[in-house]
């Protein structure tokens, strides 16, 4: 497993509030919180675009899972998603889970057999937010992305 960010419990709580503050006043209306089970914490932040009572045109959902390890909360997974609304209207995401950093790209106008594409690990939620907000404005396109695996075309029955 690639080592993620390691935080004390106090730093984790601070990070949650800092991320929420950093996102406020930018792309939309922000809600956030976390849940925990034994040695796992799930951080979730959602941005409703534009929010404030207007119909949603897009939603950003950021989830991180942190595992308690050697006296610190270590980030073990992230899922940073953009959904165009109303769903399913397109999706773009940066994921790191099950050891594999990758992108999801779903363009409903050009359906593909698989929507997993190569991606790199990074540790900057702010960069992800800016990227996804830019994509939300420009529209989703999967052009230029390299598929993680080749999926054979379905055979005729």
């Amino acid at each position, binding site marked *: 497993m690639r080592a993620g960010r390691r935080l004390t419990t106090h730093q984790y709580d601070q990070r949650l509030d800092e991320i929420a503050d950093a996102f406020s006043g*930018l792309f939309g*209306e922000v809600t956030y919180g976390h849940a925990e089970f034994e040695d796992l914490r799930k951080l*979730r932040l959602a941005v409703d*675009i*534009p929010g404030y009572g*207007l119909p949603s045109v897009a939603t950003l959902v950021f989830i991180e899972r942190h*595992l308690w390890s050697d006296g610190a909360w270590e980030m073990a997974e992230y899922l940073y998603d953009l959904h165009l609304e109303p769903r399913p209207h397109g999706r773009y995401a940066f994921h790191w889970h099950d050891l594999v950093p990758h992108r999801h790209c779903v363009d409903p106008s050009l359906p593909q057999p698989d929507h997993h594409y190569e991606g790199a690990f990074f540790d900057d939620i702010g960069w992800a937010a800016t990227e996804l907000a830019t994509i939300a404005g420009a529209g989703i396109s999967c052009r230029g992305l390299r598929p993680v695996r080749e999926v054979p075309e379905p055979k005729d029955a």
Partner: protein
Amino acid sequence: MIEFEKKPFYSPPEFAALIGVDPSTVLDWIHRDQLFALHLGPKTYRIPLAAVMRRLDPEASRPKRVPISARGLAADARRVRRRALATTVK
């Protein structure tokens, strides 16, 4: 709090009219990173509603802490622990 018509994005002149300043002041704020705006082109900016709300009603625009569902977390914990173990025990 100023009453205003909400919409997803505002041009700099629209925002300037809302708060009673000159449009050049708004552009100045954007150029100095004192006001968040999307850059659509070299001289084209759009200010999201969230940035407008932050200026006009900071309290209402604060992020809201909400309960997060713990459903599925037990299975997540098992999966994440298994992956961590698989990569540390060779």
